[in-house]
């Protein structure tokens, strides 16, 4: 398969405490394809392992088992040259535009950094490229000689986007690209992201907890709960009719501009599972309104449903056992 793919990807962290070592299963056996030209969104609450997946894809972390593959080849098996090539094709935009730009470099040096890491270019070529990239992201050419602190959050995120585009990548990992921004400028940055995707035929891996953004931007969605995919499929399908109880709960939790609306799943929803000591069986059963006896013992596999999507829930597999 072309493009990015996550194969049985797991990442465990060892934490030391007074009571000895413990293992955090941040990412647990995730299988996910990221088809070319699409926007695949990873959604889930904070701490569910979304950002760890992004780090694994960016090779900032190494997987405990499984692999991230690019054009069929595992990142772990790549030679230095192949890694360099991979880095040229996969870029990233991070959440906090205040932390992702080095305060001591001018915008010009920030944007040219990825280019100079791969190619030798003379100054005129670089300057022309910087001007071109700034224009694409909607910043004036003279922004090139300013420092990051002279820009607002939205403008900084534009700079980060220009930097991510500098190498003409195929794939951009967007880790919460607009959640640190003011509500008033989110739409602008979102439009910019959609515009450049169309213009350059980019593939996006979007990490987000903001479901409105996900619905807007993504073509495919993978819902993550405590490190595992619980439901994945076409964005429209999932938003129209979520099958997994967790997805249903997530969608119900989205605030609605209606003062009389009372969220349905609000009650009995406090028994959070932890990635440190994941519950037995289905990890979601402690919070699940439909929990059955089997949920406490067996972890449901991800099964393909009739409409092509996949979900991991005992309610959806075979004849439902007797309710408890």
């Amino acid at each position, binding site marked *: 398969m072309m493009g990015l793919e996550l194969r049985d990807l797991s990442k465990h962290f060892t934490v030391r405490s007074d009571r000895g070592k413990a293992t955090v299963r941040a990412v647990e056996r995730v299988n996910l394809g990221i088809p070319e030209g699409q926007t695949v969104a990873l959604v889930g609450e904070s701490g569910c392992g979304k950002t760890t997946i992004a780090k694994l894809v960016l090779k900032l972390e190494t997987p405990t088992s499984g692999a991230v593959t690019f054009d069929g080849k595992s990142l772990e098996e790549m030679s230095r040259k192949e890694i360099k090539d991979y880095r040229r094709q996969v870029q990233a935009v991070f959440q906090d535009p205040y932390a992702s730009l080095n*305060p001591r470099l001018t915008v010009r040096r920030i944007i040219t950094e990825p280019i100079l890491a791969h190619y030798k270019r003379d100054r005129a070529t670089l300057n022309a490229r910087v001007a071109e990239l700034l224009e694409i992201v909607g*910043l004036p050419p003279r922004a090139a000689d300013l*420092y990051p602190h002279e820009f607002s959050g939205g403008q900084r995120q534009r700079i980060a986007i220009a930097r991510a585009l500098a190498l003409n990548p195929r794939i951009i990992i967007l880790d919460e690209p607009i959640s640190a921004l003011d509500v008033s400028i989110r739409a602008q940055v979102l439009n910019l992201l959609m515009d450049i995707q169309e213009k350059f035929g980019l593939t996006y891996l979007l990490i987000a907890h903001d479901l409105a953004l996900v619905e807007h931007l993504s073509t495919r969605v993978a819902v993550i709960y405590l490190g595992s995919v619980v439901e994945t499929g076409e964005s429209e399908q999932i938003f129209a009719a979520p099958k997994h109880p967790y997805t249903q709960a997530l969608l119900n939790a989205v605030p609605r501009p209606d003062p009389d609306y009372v969220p349905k799943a609000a009650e009995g929803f406090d028994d959070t599972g932890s990635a440190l000591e994941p519950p037995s069986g289905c990890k979601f059963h402690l919070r699940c309104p439909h929990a059955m006896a089997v949920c406490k013992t067996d972890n449901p596999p991800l099964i393909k449903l009739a409409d092509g999507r996949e979900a991991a829930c005992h309610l959806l597999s075979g004849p439902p056992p007797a309710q408890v």
Partner: protein
Amino acid sequence: MTVILAPTPVTVADAPQLPFLVRFRLKGTPWIPILILLLIIVAAMGGESIAPHDPNGLDLGAAFRPPFWQAGGSYDYLLGTDNLGRDVLSRIIAGARVSAIVVLYAIGFSGAIGTMLGIMAGYFGGIVDMIIVRITEIMMAIPTLALALIFTATMDPGLSTVIIVIVLTYWTWYARIIRSEILSLRERDYVAFAKVAGCGPVTIFLRHLVPNIFNTLVVLMTLQVGQVIIFEASLSFLGVGIQPPDTSWGLMLADARQYITYAWWGITMPGIAIILTCLSSNLIGDWLRDLLDPKRRQL
């Protein structure tokens, strides 16, 4: 949804489009501290040759002359004379050299060693970090003066012993502070991005880590100027530092202490020299820090 990419009105704060060097604001330049430090440097370099008298020239007949503005003082001895009739001004000028040498070597070596070890500990982490942190903790547990006394007992007291003791004491400062700086810098998003962009460790190190510890280093070093001078003074005061007939500001303080009640100038004048030097170096350090920080530079 329709994709609108309206050329959003982007306002960028007006920044002076001046060459880098001119952008250094001249207004905030601390001219007086720079002048004072220059004077001290000239004194340190000129030493005995620019002193009005021989700094070690004994003249018991001229002992305890007050400074020129006080009754009994003369323009011959501008800042008075000490108990042996030596000219205080000449001795301050001669002592400036010793103090300058101690400051330069001590700060240079302790800064270099401490920064290097701090960077290594922070950057590599793991066992390297553990070893370096343990060594700094051991060094910090040893009382400085005890260390100085051990050194002078085993080596000749003098300039080089003073420098060695100060370096051994102060490098832990740099190591600890730089280590924690690097630890936090290493986790910044722009470092992660530099890796994603394909930069090698050397580039990341030189472009993203080192420039960002500059502020800290400048502040630490300029703060240390005062401390080193005073530390040298206390070593000399205890007799384990600079040995007569050489002189330093600290030794002058020690010598003049017992006559403080009737010859205040003997201890006050070198004291003022120390204060001015510390103050100047701290003010210049603050200014340098602002100068090196793009966030403050253009304001």
